[in-house]
């Protein structure tokens, strides 16, 4: 299945890219998506995850065509 991965803010800067397009075989969770996309990078503290623009837990299962996003705590307002 195809998964689009997006990164924002300080996480985007530390990873050095804003998105990935992954092909994953079989069942995968949001945590798996992070590990496939960033096999050598330890997950920074407090990173949040979203699937299709809704917040999810790390064990949420992803589906073909999903957009998965990772980002640090929000600081708007």
């Amino acid at each position, binding site marked *: 299945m195809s998964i689009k991965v997006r990164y*924002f803010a300080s996480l985007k800067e530390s990873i050095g890219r804003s998105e990935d397009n992954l092909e994953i075989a079989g069942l995968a969770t949001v945590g798996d998506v992070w590990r496939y996309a960033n096999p050598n990078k330890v997950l920074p503290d407090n990173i949040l995850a*979203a699937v299709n623009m809704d917040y999810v837990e790390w064990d949420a299962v992803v589906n073909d065509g999903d957009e998965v*996003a990772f*980002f640090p705590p929000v*600081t*708007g*307002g």
Partner: protein
Amino acid sequence: MDIKICPEPFDPWQGIQAHQSSAADMAGKFGATSIFIGTMRDFNEGDDVKGMTLEHYPGMTEKQLEKIVAEAMRQWPVIDALVMHRVGDILPNEPIVLVAVWTSHRGDAFDASRYIMEALKSRAPFWKKELLKSQSERWLVKNTDGYL
């Protein structure tokens, strides 16, 4: 409900006036309007700040703001609400955020606008990067705790 992401400087007072005059069916129905405006300071955490860049997640930001306002409208009898939020490069003294809530009575207006503002601070995907007078840049790590 109206949610506006503003890539350019905006005048919150004009925004309120425009919204209120465009919502003719509201006339005579509301007795209270609660307005919160957040403005950029020129100091933070003991440092002089000369500018800021606000990043957002187009699509998710609007979606989360709509959810937050809908939650407030379920909890309180809100007649209408307007949220405006800047993105991009911002200078001190420029408005960052406006939350305006129209209700029949003041208590609901205060409570609903506080709910929207606090939920926005913790859930709406915006990120601030400060440019200090010393020319160094830093991402804000987290917002201050809420007041709910």
